[in-house]
């Protein structure tokens, strides 16, 4: 089984090497960073001439796809564990991982004045559904659970939790009003120039483990100069300006 997986991986890599154009990078990006990456890619393409092919989803899902031989060249994750694990397991280039952003969790509702500045609404009976991303695969979902636990509401809220497969689906549940509120990323509600409507509580850092978001060069991209250029560009002042504008902290 292992050998089968490995040879499937090799086949994918070979395919990618023959099929990919030099100036293109296959990027897997955590859903919370999809929109910032879109903005960053404009500057990146202008500066380097390279283009990005982006797939957005949950970090955990990308992990299973990558170990299954997916031809992604760069992973822009929502945690620092997954890139480390990929390096240990030989799917990513050692030493290429770095923290490009520190994620901020918010409790958001599409309704104005619904979420108060202390998040007291969490303990109230004023809502039927609270959306979170699947905690097993999405770091922001896990962080949301930690906040609920810290508030001692795990049991009270369990029947009200609706789980999205990624933070993007959690966001979509709240934005359509089907969930009254939900834990999402600050970057999703504080989009520069296009802030989401409603009300939110910026969850204090002490209520959840720091969300260090790392990027890493994956094995299929090891020889692609454009993939390396993207990682370098993520550390540039131009990219960091965009990252900060979306409300992230800078990790370096």
């Amino acid at each position: 089984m292992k050998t089968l997986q490995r040879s499937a991986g090799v086949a994918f890599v070979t395919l990618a090497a023959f099929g990919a154009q030099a100036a293109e990078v296959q990027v897997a990006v955590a859903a919370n960073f999809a929109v910032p990456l879109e903005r960053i890619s404009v500057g990146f393409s202008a500066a380097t001439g390279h283009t990005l092919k982006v797939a957005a989803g949950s970090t955990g899902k990308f992990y299973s796809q990558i170990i299954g031989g997916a031809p992604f060249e760069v992973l822009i994750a929502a945690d620092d564990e997954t890139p480390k694990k990929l390096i240990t397991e030989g799917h990513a280039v050692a030493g290429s991982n770095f923290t490009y952003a520190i994620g901020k969790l918010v409790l958001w509702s599409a309704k104005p004045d619904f979420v108060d500045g202390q998040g007291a609404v969490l303990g109230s009976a004023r809502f039927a559904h609270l959306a979170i991303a699947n905690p097993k695969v999405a770091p922001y979902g896990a962080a949301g659970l930690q906040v609920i636990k810290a508030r001692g509401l795990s049991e009270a809220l369990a029947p009200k939790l609706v789980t999205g497969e990624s933070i993007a689906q959690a966001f979509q549940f709240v934005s359509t009003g089907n969930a009254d509120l939900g834990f999402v990323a600050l970057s999703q509600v504080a989009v520069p120039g296009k802030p989401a409507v409603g009300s939110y509580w910026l969850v204090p850092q002490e209520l959840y483990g720091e969300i260090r978001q790392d990027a890493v060069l994956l094995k299929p991209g090891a020889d692609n100069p454009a993939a390396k250029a993207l990682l370098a560009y993520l550390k540039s002042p131009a990219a960091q300006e965009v990252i900060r504008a979306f409300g992230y902290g800078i990790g370096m």
Partner: protein
Amino acid sequence: MTPEDWSAVRLTAQLAALTTLLLLIVGTPIGWWLARTRSRFKPLVASLVTMPLVLPPSVMGFYLLLLLGPQGPVGQLTQALGLGRLPFSFAGLVVASVLYSMPFVVQPLQQAFEAIPERTLEAAATLRAGPWDRFFSVVLPLARPGFLTASVLGFAHTVGEFGVVLMIGGNIPGVTRVLSVAIYGHVEALEFEAAHRLAAGMVVFAMVVLVALYMLSRPTGRAAQAAR
């Protein structure tokens, strides 16, 4: 199998059974009308019924989320009636499944009804059988294989539903976490053992259902010939 997995099995069976029952009730008049009508609206109605076969589940999930949501017309109606909101509820899954599995029930029924010759019904009418009598003592027995196929396909297809449930279900254990979603969750979390247990069960289930269907539907030809 964990208790949560069993609850997914139970929930899926309940959803499929209720959906099939409702579809037989709703689908019989629709199938009958489609089989007998000469209305110029027939192509339109037939297309509407068949649409879920063609549309990606993501399209249905997306529009259901908007329609059933608090801003959507259906959502406002259900709230005004005091029924609450349908997404993330078992009732919501039933509504979605009825729409989604509709062609799998209506089409076999329609075909079975179409196969009943007009003169058989006329003969019954000359024997003073009223419309209801004709339906229950002539149409139903003749269309029995059609009802069987419709029930099996409706049930099986609802069990196999995934995309729509994923989009409007919210993955709540015991409420909306059906088998397909539970398997997806296990695979996503790399719990392959747990995924195998459920997935292999689904493969066996599908095989048994289809073999049973083909074995049961074989005599249909003979029965139909005997009827003529």
